[in-house]
């Protein structure tokens, strides 16, 4: 099964890498870029080969969360900002704001944790909304919903469709066939045309005799570089079904949807020694899982072993990779990006961002022509 995964993710990445080249029809080879938001409230485009910040575009409103998704043509960054309320589409080559979803309206305040995604064809934006009615003398929590915005509606975009959605959805991603994956207490698959959703991968609702309930905190939509939508869980693994606490081992595990095939896989990948905030598998090395916070750790998924761990200068919340899988990029928390060798975990350098903290922002790495 892992072989299978491997093949598909390779294909996925190769196809993605080719796409802009074909479209542009020019001779320049694609290279890796990163888009990342930080304080005071801006988004930067970084040339990862030159380790240079090419452009920094200001965003309206107040900072937060800084969750970011790229358009399929890798020209526009969609950033969740203004205290988890607005999503702006920014042309990273001109800094022009071409799209905005201002969610709150009238006395309805709408917040999105980090759950939004762009459709495969780049025409729609899907957003998980948590509305509250702010009445004159009291607040009223409303049912969450999935709102669909038409990107062509630009700066005046309003939802064109809304569906009921589960509560506690934190991250989302679209698969290659257009399926929308919602990462909540479980992972759900939604048909964005009808709003019908089904259980895709049981997480909190999973009943496993040898395991405690899983705990997942994933607020970074990561994995496109490896053709996956991935979150990490922690759980106690007991020696047997009698679940004796003294036999419990704390384990890390992954919950993964292959974006190309839609295949869902899950399992432990190693022991939990230190807290990690985000993680993903290494491009072209589907058996290698990387995670980071105060340490950068690399695991052998099949052996469920920690391969290597290095202490980081400070914490980084967000992991990502170069397209060829040779370099790890660590982002989030403060205002620099750290670069590590994915084989040796040796530090290769830093890229300093203008401005302040990235905090919970998501760094997306993608290949495109300049």
């Amino acid at each position: 099964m892992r072989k299978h995964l491997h093949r598909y993710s390779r294909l996925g990445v190769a196809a993605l890498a080719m796409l802009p080249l074909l479209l542009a029809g020019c001779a320049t080879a694609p290279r890796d870029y990163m888009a990342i938001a930080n304080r005071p409230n801006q988004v930067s485009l970084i040339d990862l080969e030159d380790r240079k910040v090419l452009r920094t575009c200001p965003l309206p409103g107040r900072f937060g969360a800084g969750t970011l998704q790229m358009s399929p043509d890798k020209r526009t960054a969609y950033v969740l900002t203004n205290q988890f309320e607005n999503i702006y589409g920014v042309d990273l080559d001109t800094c022009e704001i071409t799209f905005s979803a201002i969610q709150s309206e009238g006395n309805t305040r709408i917040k999105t944790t980090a759950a939004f995604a762009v459709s495969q064809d780049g025409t729609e934006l899907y957003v998980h909304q948590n509305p509250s009615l702010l009445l004159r003398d009291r607040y009223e929590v409303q049912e969450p919903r999935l709102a669909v915005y038409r990107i062509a509606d630009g700066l005046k975009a309003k939802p064109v469709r809304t569906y009921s959605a589960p509560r506690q959805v934190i991250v989302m991603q679209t698969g290659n066939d257009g399926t929308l994956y919602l990462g909540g207490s479980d992972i759900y698959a939604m048909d964005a045309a009808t709003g019908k959703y089904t259980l895709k991968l049981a997480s909190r609702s999973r009943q496993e005799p040898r395991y405690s309930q899983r705990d997942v905190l994933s607020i970074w939509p990561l994995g496109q570089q490896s053709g996956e939508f991935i979150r990490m869980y922690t759980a106690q693994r007991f020696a047997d079904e009698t679940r004796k606490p003294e036999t419990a081992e704390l384990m890390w595990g992954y919950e993964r949807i292959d974006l190309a095939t839609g295949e869902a896989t899950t399992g432990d990948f190693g022991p939990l020694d230190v807290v990690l905030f985000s993680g993903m598998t290494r491009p072209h090395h589907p058996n290698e899982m990387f995670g980071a916070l105060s340490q950068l750790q690399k695991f052998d998924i099949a052996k469920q072993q920690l391969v290597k761990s290095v202490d980081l200068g400070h914490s980084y919340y967000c992991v990502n990779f170069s397209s060829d899988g040779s370099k790890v990029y660590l982002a989030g928390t403060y205002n620099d990006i750290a670069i590590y060798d994915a084989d040796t975990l040796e530090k290769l350098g830093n890229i300093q961002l203008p401005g302040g903290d990235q905090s919970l922002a998501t760094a997306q790495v993608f290949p495109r022509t300049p």
Partner: protein
Amino acid sequence: MKKAHIWPALCLALMPFLPAQANEALLRHNCGACHADPANPEAPLSRISEQRKSPEGWEMTLHRMQTIHGVQLSDPDGKSDSAGVLFQLLKHLSDTHGLAPAETVGLRYTLERRHNTVDIPEDAEYAVMCTRCHSNARVALQRRTEPEWRNLIHFHLAQFPTTEYQIGGRDREWFPIAIERTLPMLAAAFPLQTAEWEAWQKAAKPALAGRWRVTGRMAGKGDFNGVMTATAGNADSYSVALVGEFSGGEPLEMEGDSVVYTGFEWRGNLRADAAGDKEQYLQVLEASADGSALTGRMFPFDHPERGIDLQARRDDGTPRLLAVSPAYLKRGTTATLTVSGSALSGAPLLGAGLTVNRIVSRDADRVVLEVTAAADAPTGARTIGVGKASLPAALTVFSTVERVEVSPAYTVGRVGGKEGSQPEVQGRFEAIAWTNGPDGTPGTADDLRIGPVKAQWSVAPWNEKAAKDRDIEFAGSIDKDSGIFAPAAAGPNPARKQSTNNAGNLKVIATVGEGESAVRGEGQLLVTVQRWINPPLW
């Protein structure tokens, strides 16, 4: 980072007396824009009349109206400034929508800022649902109608959306559980209308002016002994003077004001300018229904951990014995004991095996005795008397300290104290001595509590990780005599691994006695980062 908001004192300078009607008008003027409910003549101001809480509870709500909802408090007559109006509303709301004394039993720890108190409710689901961010007392010191408890839950999730994503939130369907299970529980356990409140509203409220004999204790300084004088002002306010000393000899002299809310919640605001101690102290005392006693705690505003536990008895001329200090005596030794009370006269009565060698000094408030305990004096807690006054279990006679308990057994200290940061939070410890009792086994019912004794203090790493990270070198230091732990400065420390801050996980060790016979006790001190929001109710 900006300095956290300093919560206004519950008692400000003495305020002009306003009749109830004027207070209602003040409420309408300041709150009516959002809370007027003309459709409901029974409760013309929505929400406000459907809940009851402590003065501190009202203080937090009013603070939120100002900070989140932008309420600018004002007096239509222009007589009071916004702080004056705040006080006026606090007083009025606490008096008309407060709690009865019985409704605060077991929950006063949060009013008294005893931040070490562990209060884990038996209902495990409720404990995680409602007491993982704040104390159980913040909840249980409120009474509401069912719709008001519902509004509160909605407010929580709407205002703090991360509630359902944090640990203790994301492991469950937080919101549905809160509405379907927690809400009915809260409405049943803490309803708006109660027999206690009915009765308290009708009860005559005690006047608290007079001379008060005060005894107490402060970790690091010892037993306190003093006199508080309260002179009545208007509208339940008093001017207050407190004079006394600690058993270590340190004097204490303060003056200030107090206001009594809801007929029994005494909040004093005292200062000791004379001693050069400019710190402002808050007194949080509960008046007994008959007005004969005041019980609680006082502490510097910025340092709730440096508190003095206080009991005050009205000196009404009745002979009363209130405390003996120290409250223990070792067999076969001689010690000086201070017997405190009021209207004390007549002979000291100490019981079998104790001899008064001489009376060192005496007056109506205190009798100082030099006492010898015979080698075979009966052990245990005993009644002590002076003339007609007596106090049960006032003195414990013991033979050996067999066990030492560090109190508090677990506490949290906080780094701080640098400019632009929160004041540090010290650890303050006492060594409580015990004997194992006749059965010789520790932890059984016959164990004899001797009380707080002198100890030598030290710290050690709590566990292997703390040892590896060298926590004891960075987190701060403990004074070997007083048991006061002073945390290190806030902020990253380049000398530490990953420039982390000066947090640490420490074992606090009290050693009582010397050499072979020394007995040790251990507690845990977690030194952690600052708390930026320090509301009056944790």
